[in-house]
Structure formats: structure tokens, C-alpha cells
């Protein structure tokens, strides 16, 4: 589904991603871990098309198409979704109106007619229950005055509504208490299917107790320095990242 080859990217003239290679297949759940500042959010930003990043080398193929050539909206329309680490507050744009606009723009891209209001409301209700998103928040301005947890849940609610092929969750678990975490994880698990894939960025192993990954990658200093299975996450939880950092530096100095 997604193939990342030797991806290099910089922001403000500073090299952040230094040769990422990653292959994500349908049905898979990939976890990306790594210390603060290692480039996890940068990777998701580059994939989603944030404009202040410049790709200097490498390529990304998504469902057979060159992802890096597409505008952010076309990436979304092709089935890519990124849940933001820091969702934006947009006063004056209602949550529901925003979602309806998004859904219908994606449908129009696939030559589908706009969704009828009745159908839209039905879908809204269904997904809102799936991720236990407070119905009162739906008519409010987008994320305005939402608590940290409500914002994160809204990201997952949008994910459920837009039904992408590949979802990237950037630290959706941080800022959630354990109950909220369980609900969000349960929601994500319900959305898993054989033709969808997930890339879950997290700091903590605890999320991976609920969302069991097929692969765990460690991102450090702009590169994936280790790949393993869910046991790697446990090991990281226990030992921290320092041993990995040392390994990397040893390799570099050889």
C-alpha cells in the first residue's frame, strides 16, 4: 500500500529525515516509536503534505501513485489520513459542516454524488458511538475550547467518518486517561480490516497493549534504526532508548 524509499526531508534548511525506508502492506498495523525530536511528526507531516517540509531525496508510492506529487487534499482523497498530534482549533467552522464538506469533497473526487443529509446524519451517529465522541461537541466550532482528550477523540471520530485506506495516528494516545485510551483503541480496532493499514506513532508501550502492532519501528535522528515485533516495544519500555542510541553511534563511528 505504502512504500517509502530513502526519504530525506528538511525544514527551514535543517535536515530532519535522513533516509527513511518503510513498506506498509494492506491489513498491517505499524507502530513507530522513538525519542522526542527524532522526526516522527516530521515523517507524518511529509506524508500528509505539510508545505514547510521540502523533500530533498527519495520517493513515496501510495497505492501505485507518487504521493509526493499530490496536494494535501488529493492525498486525503486518495485515502490517506493523519490524526494530528496537535489538532487545530478553528473558531466559526462547525465540526459537522467541516466533516460534511470533507466527506463530500472526497466523494466528488471519486465521482460520487454528495451524501444526502439524512444519510450523513445516520453515519455521524454511528461513528460517534463507535469512538464514543460526545454528540454535544459536533455542532460546536471545530476543536474550539475542546479539552486535550476531546480533540484527540475528535481526530479518531474524523478518521472513522472519512474511512481512509491508510491512517497515521500521531501520538493520539498522549493526553488521554486510561479509560479514554481504551475507548480510542477499541475504536481503532473496530476500524481495522484486511484492506486497511495503520501507522501508529506513540511514546508509550501501553497503547500497544490495546492496539497490537504487527511491526514496531524505532525512529532515531531521522532514520529507522530498528524494526521488530511487539516485543521490541516492551523492551524499549524497560530499557529506554539509550542502548539504541549507543548502538547507532557505535555504528557511525566504525
Amino acid at each position, binding site marked *: 500500500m505504502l512504500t517509502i524509499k530513502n526519504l530525506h526531508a528538511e525544514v527551514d534548511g535543517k535536515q530532519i529525515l535522513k533516509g527513511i525506508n518503510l513498506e506498509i502492506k494492506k491489513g498491517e498495523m505499524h507502530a513507530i516509536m522513538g525519542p522526542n525530536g527524532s522526526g516522527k511528526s516530521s515523517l507524518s507531516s511529509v506524508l500528509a503534505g505539510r508545505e514547510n517540509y521540502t523533500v530533498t531525496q527519495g520517493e513515496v508510492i501510495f497505492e501505485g501513485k507518487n504521493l509526493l506529487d499530490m496536494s494535501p*487534499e488529493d492525498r486525503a482523497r486518495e485515502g490517506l489520513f493523519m490524526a*494530528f498530534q496537535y489538532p487545530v482549533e478553528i473558531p466559526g467552522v462547525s465540526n459537522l459542516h467541516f466533516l460534511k464538506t470533507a466527506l463530500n469533497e472526497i466523494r466528488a*473526487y471519486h465521482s460520487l454524488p454528495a451524501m444526502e443529509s439524512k444519510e450523513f446524519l445516520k453515519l455521524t451517529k454511528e461513528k460517534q458511538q463507535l469512538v464514543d465522541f460526545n454528540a454535544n461537541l459536533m455542532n460546536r466550532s471545530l476543536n474550539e475550547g475542546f479539552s486535550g482528550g476531546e480533540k484527540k477523540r475528535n481526530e479518531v471520530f474524523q478518521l472513522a467518518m472519512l474511512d481512509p485506506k491508510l491512517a497515521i495516528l500521531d501520538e493520539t494516545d498522549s493526553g488521554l486517561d486510561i479509560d479514554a485510551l481504551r475507548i480510542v483503541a477499541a475504536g481503532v480496532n473496530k476500524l481495522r480490516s484486511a484492506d486497511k493499514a495503520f501507522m501508529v506513532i506513540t511514546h508509550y508501550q501501553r497503547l500497544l497493549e490495546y492496539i497490537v502492532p504487527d511491526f514496531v519501528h524505532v525512529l532515531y535522528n531521522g532514520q529507522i534504526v530498528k524494526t521488530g515485533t511487539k516485543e521490541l516495544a516492551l523492551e524499549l519500555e524497560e530499557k529506554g532508548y539509550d542502548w539504541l542510541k549507543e548502538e547507532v553511534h557505535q555504528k557511525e563511528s566504525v
Partner: protein
Amino acid sequence: MTSDKSFYEFISNGVPGPEQKVDADNAILPARKLAFGRFKELGLPTVKTEEWRYTNIQRYLKDAFTLAQEEQGTVTAEQLKSAGIPQLDSYRAVLVNGRLQADISTLPTGGKITVSKVSDAAGNPQLQAWFDKHPHLQSQPFAALNAALFADGLFIEAGVNASLDKPLHIIHVYTASANAFIQPRHLIVLHKSATLEVIESAVGINDNAIAFVNGVTEVVLEENAELWHYNIQSTVKNSRHIYHTSTTQKADSRYHHFNFTLPSAELTRNNLSVALTGSNTETNLHGLYLATGTQHVDNHTFVDHLVPNCNSNELYKGVLLDDANGVFTGKIHVHQDAQKTNAFQQNNNLLMSEKANINSQPQLEIYADDVKCSHGFTVGRFSEESLFYLRSRGIGEEAAKSLLVNAFAFDITDQVHIPALQDFLAEKIRQYVAGAINN
């Protein structure tokens, strides 16, 4: 008409004076003559005139004009449609260059609310009492020029307790075969406890010649009267507008004024002023300006708190693109006697290009001590992060910008209580943003 004379010379000596204007029984002639004298004395403002510092009006008066109000323009159904507001259910007064066209208008009947030509109503005691009497107009040269030589306009009078089942829509059509200086003039009087909704909109139908519109509307609200007053300015590029709206509010009256300046007249200067002469009044002034290209939009507002216990609330918002230039000056004068005044003012701007510019200044003169007054001014750029958030959900750039501009304008458009007008404005915002992206 010659272009080598200054505009002032042209008006003072080059056109037929007030004596040539024929109203019913010549009843307005004395007022016209007085105003003409005032105009000559005041002269035209320059950039050294404090109130015109940011608007170099001389620049817009250089062209040669005729006083085209003498032209009897005509208008087709198609042209009229373009001036309309889709789905709006209203009474309709169509004016061509300031003159009411009864045959294509639908005026209220039944007598409690009358809509007539100023020229026909010239002898009416209300008109005699109020015409050109607003204190804030006395120092305004363009208002004086209008009073002296205006073509015609509407006199709207609502009797005690009168109201209408739907809004009255005044459609101005400006048409000129050559550069024209057009001067419409209205007076709206609402007697005790009357209520009315008035929408003014304008359309220019000749792109080849410049239409310079110098309009004045005076409003009088007697005790407990309420007026919803919408002014929609969306005409052709080749037009220039100076507009004075001057309102007098008596006790317990409520005035809700909305000013929407949309593309693409090259000059818009609005002087909106309200004199509060009775207590317990409510004044809401809402403004939204969307400017592109080299448009220059200047809003001067003035709320004059003369007596105690009045509330005024003002919110003006602007979105500026390209090389557009905005000016906002909000004056609030709280006189010594005007205790317990609440006066709020806010001006927010969104600049969507590097070259767009806004000059905003509050002018608070407060001489009473027991008052609540505040003012604020912000200027912001488009939030790239918000835009990216929307686009990352599949919303195209144009739709995303349109959502954001709509969101910015929301506190204004949300106050509009006529759904068809809300829809119309949303569509105008969409077109504005689309135009911005496609050029």
C-alpha cells in the same frame, strides 16, 4: 464639464445651481441653497484634512464628470436580476441614478408605511423638519454637496406602531453613458414604536464610464422605534462611492446597521454616524469589508453618546487581498452627561497578501466617569496551520479558504436575521475567495 478645472471649480461654477432643481413647490430649495453655501465654504478635503488622511479623494475626482442625474436611465429585467438577492421575499423599490422607477417597483400598500420620491414629498412636514438637519452632516463637504444638488431619492415614513410583513429592498442601479457624478438622497423616518427592515443594494451597469456615487441617507428613529438597516455595496470596478448614513435615535429606539462592502468598486468611503438624543437606546453597527485588487475601503464611524444609559456595540471586520487598502476610524464620543454609557468597539482584519494594508484607529473621547467603554483592533494573517488541517481532510484549497473566511466573518453574518441575505453573503464570500485563488 472640463477636466482642466478642479472638481471644486466645476461644481461651484460649472453646473446648474440649486435653483435649477425643481421639487414639489420648491419646498427644499432654501435648504439646498444653504447647503450649497456650506459646500463652497467647506471646500473639498485633502490628505491634510484629518478625516481624509488615508483617503486621497482628490485622486478620484480628477476625471471629468457630468452630473448624470439628469440622465433618465433605463434598466432591463436581466440587469435588475443581477442586482437582486435570490430567494429574498421583499418589497422592492428600484431606483435608477437615484430616481424611483414605480413601474418596476413593488411598494408596500395600505398607508401606514409610505415610500415616495423626495421630490414629490418635498413639502411634507417630516421632510421639512429633518432634511439635512443631522448635526454630523454639517461639517461634511460631500454631504453638503449632496444636499445642494442631489437628483432624487426616497422618503420613507413609517407611522406610529407600523411594521411590514417583509423587508423593503432598495435597489440602486447606476448607469451612465459618460463619467457621471450621481447623488441619491434618502430620508427614513420611523415614528413611535414602528419597526422596519431596509436592505439597500447597488449595481452598476456600465463598465465603460466611471460612476461616482455620492449618497446620503438620513434616519430618524422616534421613541421605541426599531430599524434593521442593511447596506450592501457590490458594484463594478469602475465605480467610486462616498456614502453618508446619519441616524438620530430617540429614547428606547433600536438601530441595527450592517455594512457589507464587497468587490469591486475602486473607492468606497462610508461615513456612518449615530446621534443618541434619548436614553435607553441600543445601537449595533456591524461591518464586513472584502477587498481585492486595488480597492480602497474606508469606514468612518461615529457614535455620539449625548445622554445617559445608552448602549452601543460596534464590530467591523475586514478581509483584504492583493493590493487592497483598508481604513477604519471608529469615533465614540461620550458627553459629560452621558453617564451609564456602554460603548464597545472592535475592528478585526485578516490580510491575505503581503501588500494588502489596513490603517485602523479608534477615537475615544470620554467625558463622563461612570461608563463602560472598550475598543480593540487586531490584524492577522491567514493561518497556514488551519488551512493545512482542512486540506488534510480532503477539502480543496478554495473551499478551505472559503470556510476560513466565512468563519472569520461569522460573528457578522450570524447577526443577519434574513436567511436569503445570509445565503447571498455566503455566496459572495465564496466568489471572493475563488476570485482570489484564480488570479
